């Protein structure tokens, strides 16, 4: 069977080394980025000036997941973008190879394991869980049963002071007209178990503080989900003043960041009251409003923050003016100068909208310390000088262009390293329940390294050393056992 690439409008994909098993792709192709746990071999691959995620799996699953991701994209659900399915792969010697699913890497996104490579506060952890619960609610509203909700199967992006979660693995999912209560509750049961498993695993590897109770955190998801689901979908019975109640309901949904698309109004059987139930609820209320006003495409909480600033600006500077006009003024006088004030060599740190959010925060602290209002340009200058340089390069972590990044920021990379170096390329190749997993390599796996720019990560050397020693001991024991099967 000849090599077949379905889906992508990108002839350059043909040039990737499809005739080699993914686990042996040459290191100049591989972007050493942190990965979640995966049942399959997954590698990040440099392609053009971007990064692709390539996953080896069987052709039926690859095609199915591709369709599912496309369908989710059509429904505007937060998920990675499917690029192509590659089938008919074989080695030069004619040995058949697994099919592959290619997705685009989500810029500025972080797998949860990357967030644990720096000291993790409990606050961050609960925010991750909250972001995941919003994601699950949104997917459930769209009729998507995930079947394997976990921290590993999502990616996280900073979103003002919160996180936004994106689905990255749709392999086990199903699209339905509407989910049954059973499907929703089972998805949450799986989620809870998976999250607790993932956190226990982090504790075993000493990446998560012993003081944090995984069961506590894990059960938070369901509670948060239930709260949000109820707020979005509960039916209320009202006897009078229907327009007021509908408007009130819309306002409450907007506060939660959702829009009401359709509503069901049904007279009760005795005809004395009306039952209201939201039927179609869309996420992204604030990000859509900001997009309409300014053309800025940012995440929900960032949009909320920017809109607050915009509204404040409008109240003070352009009273009585049309909202669109005020937005234009704000964009040219406040937002753009702030973003332009970030030197080129620091732009890989954070997304522009996130920078703006942090400048606003910084301004608040400055104002509190000095006891007087601090103008935006002053706050920006102080932020760029004192705060931004201390941030890790997040675009470098999972940015669109690592090659470009390092060309632009040699000094910075030299100084900070890329922080999130994949310490062991095989560490996260999860053992898959029903096989399909590569056997452990007899020798040390090849280290993916770029000599010119990397310095070793020295966050937790002790733990790694102990880990290695324990593994070595395990291996010794292993030689005494008879081989399986």
């Amino acid at each position, binding site marked *: 069977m000849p090599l077949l690439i379905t889906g992508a409008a990108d002839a350059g994909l043909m040039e990737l080394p499809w005739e080699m098993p993914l686990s042996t792709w040459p290191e100049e192709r591989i972007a050493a980025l942190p990965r979640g*746990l995966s*049942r399959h071999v997954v590698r990040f691959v440099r392609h053009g000036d971007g990064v692709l995620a390539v996953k080896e*799996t*069987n052709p*039926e*699953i690859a095609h199915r997941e591709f369709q599912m991701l496309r369908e989710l994209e059509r429904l505007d659900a937060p998920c990675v973008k499917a690029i192509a399915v590659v089938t008919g792969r074989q080695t030069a010697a004619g040995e058949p190879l697994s099919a592959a699913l290619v997705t685009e890497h989500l810029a500025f996104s972080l797998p949860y394991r990357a967030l644990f490579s720096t000291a993790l506060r409990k606050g961050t952890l609960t925010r991750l869980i909250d972001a995941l619960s919003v994601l699950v609610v949104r997917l459930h509203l769209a009729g998507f*049963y995930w*079947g*394997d909700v*976990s921290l*590993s199967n999502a990616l996280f992006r900073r979103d003002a002071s919160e996180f936004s979660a994106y689905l990255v693995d749709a*392999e*086990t999912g199903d699209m339905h*007209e*509407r989910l*049954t*209560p*059973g*499907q929703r*509750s*089972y998805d949450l*049961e799986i989620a*809870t*178990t*998976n999250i*607790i*498993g*993932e956190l*226990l*695993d*982090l504790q*075993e*590897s000493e990446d998560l503080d012993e003081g944090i109770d995984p*069961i506590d955190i*894990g059960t938070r998801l369901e509670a948060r989900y239930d709260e949000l689901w109820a707020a979005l979908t509960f039916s209320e019975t009202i006897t009078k003043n229907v327009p007021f109640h509908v408007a009130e309901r819309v306002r409450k949904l907007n506060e939660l960041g959702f829009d009401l698309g359709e509503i069901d109004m049904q007279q009760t059987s005795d005809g004395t009251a009306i039952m209201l139930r939201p039927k179609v609820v869309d996420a992204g209320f604030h990000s859509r409003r900001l997009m309409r006003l300014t053309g800025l495409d940012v995440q929900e909480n960032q949009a909320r923050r920017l809109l607050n600033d915009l509204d404040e600006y409008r109240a003070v500077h352009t009273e009585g003016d049309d909202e669109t006009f005020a937005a234009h003024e704000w964009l040219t006088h406040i937002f753009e100068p702030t973003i332009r004030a970030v030197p080129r060599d620091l732009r890989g740190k954070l997304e522009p909208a996130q920078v703006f959010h942090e400048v606003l925060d910084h301004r608040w602290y400055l104002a509190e310390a000095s006891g007087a209002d601090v103008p935006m340009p002053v706050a920006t200058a102080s932020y760029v000088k004192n705060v931004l340089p201390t941030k890790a390069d997040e675009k470098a972590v999972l940015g669109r262009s690592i090659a470009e990044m390092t060309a632009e920021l040699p000094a910075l990379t030299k100084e900070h390293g890329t922080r999130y170096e994949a310490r062991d390329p095989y*560490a*996260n190749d*999860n*053992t*898959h*329940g*029903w*096989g*399909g*997993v590569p*056997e*452990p390599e007899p020798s040390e796996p090849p280290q993916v390294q770029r000599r010119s720019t990397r310095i070793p990560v020295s966050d937790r050397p002790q733990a790694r050393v102990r*880990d290695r020693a324990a*593994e070595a001991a*395990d*291996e010794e*024991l*292993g030689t005494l*056992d008879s*081989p*399986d*099967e």
Partner: protein
Amino acid sequence: MATVTYDSASRIYPGTERPAVDSLDLDIADGEFLVLVGPSGCGKSTSLRMLAGLEDIDKGSIWVGDRDVTHVQPKDRDIAMVFQSYALYPHMTVADNMGFALKIAKVDKSEIRKRVEEAAKILDLTEYLDRKPKALSGGQRQRVAMGRAIVRQPQVFLMDEPLSNLDAKLRVQTRTQIAALQRRLGTTTVYVTHDQVEALTMGDRIAVLKDGVLQQVGTPREMYDTPANVFVAGFIGSPAMNISTFKVENGYALVGNSKVQLQRETVAHMSEADHGEAVLGFRPESLDRVAPNTEGALPVDVVVVEELGSDAFVYGQLPQPLVKQGDVKFGGSGEVIVRVDPRDVPKKGDSIWVKIREGEQHVFSAATGERISPTAVSTAATPKA
């Protein structure tokens, strides 16, 4: 341990008229391994998910033991879906990987250890309990994943195409393991697959579904020897049964210039709606090669010969025309597969004569596709010399 009963259970998706599962009646015995099998869209997965609580039951009910679970939430049904997607956590020991979910259920520590050890014994993993998954082989890892379901000690295991992720070789290995494990555990198990070979090799009994309707349920042997209708006849068995519709005159099916005698009781079961036609089925191994023009024999033009070492199959064509095309509901193409002696294979383009072995005909109504030949057919394992 428990029985499972589907009592006229139906699932009708909103906005559709035809039920996805239509009045399913099925009794699954305590400890039984039942396989739901059928082509894609037949309702097998939906049936399983109704039992799991993932699909609503719009009519009828489902019982686990003597408990009606129709409106019970999935987590309260005491059922475990065994996942193809179970992850193993790399830094946790095998024992923790198997037992951690019990911690969430607030099971006592010593009880967890006890259950993990019991499961490990059944799974041959005892000596690996304190290792990390990385140190295990692929097969052992699969067993750890199964261990996660076993330690929960549910009443029923559910498995939905658990082998679909695997390559062909590992699939055969794993299906044997699952079947053996189920027999050791003795836990009632419902297993869904689209693969009839998997169904035949694993199940105590098989239930074949099509378009949401249960076609037949029985042991692998019964399904193979006495298919209840043309669909089951064609679905179960590989290579598939030869199925063609023929004109019937005076108790004989007319095949070109040849005549095949049908059993008298079979002919008696034909109805007016059949318009003097019947569907005749015979398995590739139910044919003997005979001399040309032997009475009751059929000529077959050899199109392709497939040699498998232990077996050889002739893919051929019956003489045309069979019956008026267009009127035929079942098997109008006249294609036929014959198992032949691998040491004596005809060449492409040859014409061979074959005769259906006595008592190895399956006859179905040309109008309804229902079986009309009364007796079970037992096929010999190898062709007669």
